[in-house]
């Protein structure tokens, strides 16, 4: 049998499934049927030059969603386009913008992309279309890489300005007077890849957009907003939170797609008690090699930079052994040079590359066309991201295949055991909370700097006066005799707000170099203030870029951790005593087994001890105390107060274990439901809450102030409990494992059963 024989994708899949070991690990095998193109003629009002330009690019008609978007925009509506990867979303906004610019060169548009690379891509596509249509267009990327001499001409004459939220926030809005030509004539705001604006980042971006719209109103423009997003649940809600305005949602995808086969692989359990299973990478490799040997273009998604590099070297090695095309496979991730990335994208488009191993950098709308196969090494963290990555496989009219290989993590285990979540459940919502008090106040400062506030003026849904009065106490803002609120400070507030992290205070990590070498100290990273006591306490082993550092000293007052590189066989794990106190209840609702609520809480965390654990075996090598002050933070939480009568007669330790187990299972499911990282969601359970005098499980938002997560858990309580129950009941383990109720739950084998009984109480009747 020839190792390298071109074969259709379907054959390669069958060959893969002919291996019994592979076949046995398949937990889901679905076929997404082919989708026919739904076409619409070019609108009669479309500028003939654009029609000619599109024809020159081989486009004879629009997809239905493109036509729908254009008509809605023409009718003056905001539009949200939610269609598959590579379905021609850019045309939905490029065409209306070019149409308007062709008729009136004074028209301006602002495109916002989450990354610099995407701005570059989109600028290239827009220029190509304008050239094909013979329309003069001044479109330019304005980001940190834009040379100073070019900047002033973009400000004055750029008809389409492509930028990112960070640049908008720190460079454009505070200097809006230099952009008055843009703001006065702004007709379109395009927010692409909107699903990436979630959590803290999304909450910041929503406030940046508030500031943007406020300035547009000042300059007398009323732009339409076009938002594009990958498939997510409640796109209308996301866009309304993000822009503060209703938007016409267009979800019917008019682009054609060939049939796509989707496999979910659950690596089999090797040791039930320890939860050890066959490696994820083995399956990923096997699948990717089969496709590449058949000459099918394959994209492999890793979850981290390290796993990308590891998979890449293993795949190359395997191909080299068989004298295969090991040079036709490349890596792709952040940290590669832009030119390198452009070359890889081009290689995928023209077929010279056979495979690429990538982080989620390729999940966003980078133009690489569509490929034959996508292999995901691990659940990417959300259903939306999963479908984005699946969506990279799927050529027009040809069959394709997408494979998800689960890892041993709790969320992966949940998805592997309940693949229906991927296929039938509506994709998660992207949650963000523009009214997070910390975020809101920070942007209100920036907004006052940009333009004074009139009394009663709204910022978001409500008048800003009360918040401005609070800022006035700091002295940066003052109310003058005319009642308006003015910026009255030397500070430049935008520079104090980083959009991509929550805490404004960080502890910087300073590498002093190897002992006795006299190396110059260098900052290698930072951690937020709330994580610092458990990550960089004195004596901790801190991991950075796969290197170990020993923390010699943590200067708490100066917010500096001094570390040195070491090479040791262990790592450290710190424990913190977390106490949680409800401050205010926003809403409560009764239910079976107890009542649920959400509200504001104060979380105090006191780092207590750390353990030294051997890398391979997790054997405990010793421990030490941590002496650091307690940290308090206000955030929002969702909680479940158990009806004492329902658990009357339970042994205290059994109840404790059941509360912990149920909390962990609920947290796992919450991460799936709300597209969040388990680290963003804190868990506290109390057998007898001092506040409620009954057993309580709290799930709290890890971000100070919260990003709206507790509120959503409150609303989706039934799904949360049902999911947690299914997770525990369907887990094949006997007494509880890391995949269901988490590690080390005491109370022997009863913990899992107790957890099941407790969850059943909450689910009763629903």
């Amino acid at each position, binding site marked *: 049998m020839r190792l390298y024989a071109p074969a259709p994708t379907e054959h390669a899949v069958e060959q893969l499934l002919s291996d019994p070991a592979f076949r046995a690990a398949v937990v889901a095998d679905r076929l997404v049927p082919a989708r026919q193109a739904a076409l619409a003629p070019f609108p009669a009002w479309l500028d003939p030059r654009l029609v000619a330009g599109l024809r020159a690019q081989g486009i004879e008609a629009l997809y239905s969603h493109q036509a729908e978007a254009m008509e809605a925009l023409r009718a003056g509506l905001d539009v949200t386009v939610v269609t598959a990867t590579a379905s021609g979303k850019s045309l939905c906004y490029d065409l209306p913008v070019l149409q308007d610019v062709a008729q009136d060169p004074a028209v301006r548009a602002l495109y916002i992309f989450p990354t610099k690379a995407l701005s570059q891509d989109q600028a290239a596509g827009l220029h190509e279309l304008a050239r094909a249509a013979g329309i003069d267009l001044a479109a330019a990327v304005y980001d940190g890489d834009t040379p100073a001499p070019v900047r002033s001409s973009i400000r004055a004459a750029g008809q389409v300005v492509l930028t990112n939220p960070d640049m908008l926030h720190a460079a454009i809005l*505070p*200097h*809006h*007077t*230099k952009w*008055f030509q843009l703001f006065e004539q702004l007709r379109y705001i395009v927010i692409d890849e909107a699903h990436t604006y979630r959590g803290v980042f999304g909450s910041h971006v929503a406030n940046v957009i508030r500031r943007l719209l406020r300035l547009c109103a000042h*300059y*007398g423009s009323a732009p339409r907003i076009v938002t594009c997003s990958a498939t997510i649940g409640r796109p209308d*809600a996301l866009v*309304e*939170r993000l822009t503060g305005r209703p938007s016409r949602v267009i979800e019917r995808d008019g682009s054609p797609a060939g049939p796509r086969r989707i496999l979910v692989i659950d690596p089999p359990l090797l040791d039930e008690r320890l939860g050890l299973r066959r490696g994820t990478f083995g399956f990923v490799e096997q699948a990717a090699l089969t496709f590449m040997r058949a000459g099918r273009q394959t994209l492999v998604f890793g979850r981290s930079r390290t796993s990308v590099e590891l998979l890449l070297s293993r795949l190359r090695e395997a191909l080299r052994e068989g004298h295969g095309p090991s040079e036709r496979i490349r890596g792709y991730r952040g940290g590669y040079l832009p030119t390198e990335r452009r070359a890889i994208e081009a290689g995928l488009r023209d077929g010279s590359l056979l495979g690429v191993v990538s982080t989620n950098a390729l999940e966003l709308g980078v133009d690489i066309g569509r490929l034959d196969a996508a292999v995901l090494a691990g659940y990417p963290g959300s259903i939306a991201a999963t479908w984005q990555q699946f969506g990279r496989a799927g050529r027009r009219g040809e069959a394709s295949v997408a494979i998800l290989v689960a890892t041993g993590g709790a969320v992966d285990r949940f998805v592997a055991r309940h693949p229906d979540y991927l296929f039938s459940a509506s994709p998660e919502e992207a949650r963000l*909370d523009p*009214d997070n*008090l910390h975020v809101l106040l920070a942007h209100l400062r920036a907004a*006052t*700097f*940009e*333009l*004074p506030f009139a009394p009663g003026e709204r910022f*978001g*849904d*409500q008048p800003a006066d*009360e*918040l401005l009065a*609070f800022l*006035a*106490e700091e*002295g940066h803002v*003052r*109310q*003058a*005799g005319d009642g*308006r609120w*003015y910026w*009255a*400070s*030397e*500070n*430049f507030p*935008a520079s104090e707000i980083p959009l991509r992290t929550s805490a404004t205070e960080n502890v910087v990590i300073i590498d002093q170099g190897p002992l006795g070498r006299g190396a110059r100290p260098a900052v290698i990273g930072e951690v937020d203030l709330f994580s610092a006591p458990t990550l960089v306490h004195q004596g901790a082993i801190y991991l950075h870029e796969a290197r170990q550092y020993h923390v010699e000293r943590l200067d708490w007052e100066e917010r500096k951790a001094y570390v040195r590189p070491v090479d040791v066989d262990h790592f450290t794990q710190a424990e913190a005593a977390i106490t949680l106190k409800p401050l*205010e*209840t*926003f*809403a*409560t*609702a*009764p239910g079976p087994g107890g*009542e649920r609520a*959400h509200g*504001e809480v*104060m979380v105090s965390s006191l780092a207590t001890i750390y353990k030294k654990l051997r890398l391979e075996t997790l054997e405990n090598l010793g421990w030490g105390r941590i002496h650091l002050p307690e940290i*308090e933070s*206000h955030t929002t939480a969702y909680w479940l*107060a158990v009806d004492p009568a329902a658990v009357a007669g339970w042994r205290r330790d059994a109840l404790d274990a059941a509360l912990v187990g149920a909390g962990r299972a609920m947290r796992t499911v919450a991460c799936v439901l709300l597209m969040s990282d388990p680290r963003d969601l804190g868990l506290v359970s109390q057998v007898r809450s001092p506040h409620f005098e009954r057993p309580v499980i709290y799930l709290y938002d890890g971000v100070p102030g*919260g990003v*709206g997560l*507790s*509120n959503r858990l*409150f*609303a989706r309580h039934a799904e949360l409990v049902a999911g947690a129950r299914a997770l525990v009941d369907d887990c094949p383990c006997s007494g509880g494992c890391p995949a269901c109720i988490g590690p080390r739950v005491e109370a022997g084998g009863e913990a899992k059963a107790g957890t099941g009984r407790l969850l059943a109480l909450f689910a009763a009747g629903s």
Partner: protein
Amino acid sequence: MTTELARPSPTLGPMEPTAASTLAARLTRLRALDTRLRPASELPRPAARAPAGPLVAAARRTRLAEALGGKLLDTPAGSIVVVERDVPLPFDPLPLRALPFPIDADRPLIMLDTETTGLGSGAGTLAFLVGLASWSGDRLHVRQLWLADQPEEPALLDALAASLPPDGWLVTYNGRAFDWPLLITRYRLQRRSPPPLAGHLDLLPVARQLWRHRLPDARLASVEAGVAGVRRGTDLPGALVPERFLRFLRDGDPRPLVPVGEHNRQDVISLGLLLVVLAEVLARPEGRSRAAAGDLVGLGRAFERAGQAAEALACHEAALERAAPLDRRDGRAVARPGGRLPTLDPALERARLLRRMGRRSEALEAWRAIAAEGGRRAIGAWIAVAKELEHGAHDPAAALEAVRQAEQLLARRRALGLFFREAERDLPYRRARLLRRLASAPASAPPAAPASASVASG
């Protein structure tokens, strides 16, 4: 314990149940939390009471006017405080025409300097004081426009626009990068067009070219002291200005602003004085005899950059006459205390300029003259002579002689432990090439390796 849902279905946001009272409660808790987390130095200031109503605003203006010795100017857009002073300063602007700087001496010249609430250029930085100065006969008339409160800014912008004639020529210090763009921002913020101007001379780059070499830095205070002999008494450091005005906004006490006004007035007067120095000393040949040699070299360079080679040459020659013999011997400039820049060497400048003007024989003579004086710069001069003789006069024998002169000087310096790297590298190649030329017919061989050059050395 069980309560009703605050709102029927909280589908969209946690702010929904957060009614106004709840927000107040959250702010109160945030306040308490912040106090615990922050060091005492960052504690919130006591709540600044907003002055209520127009009466208080009027009182604030009146107090400011009294403290500054100014008067109120009421406009439809609001009221500002105007402070006016005259100083005697005779000035004939016409000689400025001769200078290579962007200024039209036939137009009204307006000196301008702003005081602001910060150094940033964003929309939140306010110009609360605009100082203007213009000539009226032999007197310089200083007019300062003061803002007593933020809402009155439109009145200040009105008054400024009225004070800037459309054919006026602005004179500032760093105004191209700072003051004028900031004022444009203020007009744009009010959605107005900035007042038109005929032109704008920023004296900062001029001062860098002409005077920086003999001053510790290029700040206006240093330049006015070194060039126009201005002695400020107790001048307010510029860095303290924003805080003084911000404090006035909060407490209404105008007294700390008095030094700010004096500082600003001196700034615009100094701009006038610098124009006087330019016109009387540097613009006219008879004035140049009073100028420092380095200033004239800087002016020569400015002329050269403006394409006025003959004027440039005249400056360098005037500088040469003015240069002290001590200065002339050592081409490395006279390092003066205070970390000043090296003075440009007029003789070298002149020789280079002559070469650039194509006056090769004069350039050769100039280089010879420099070489004849000896010293470190003689080595470079002999090399320049060698180049000129080799490529200009096509006299390799004479060029080789010049190379030998340079080598002797170099050897003497080396013996003293002094090195001149460029020359050490250059000379062996040059000598080898010249020897080849002399040995063969006019050669076109590439330069030989240094090893082969040693054959002929001695």
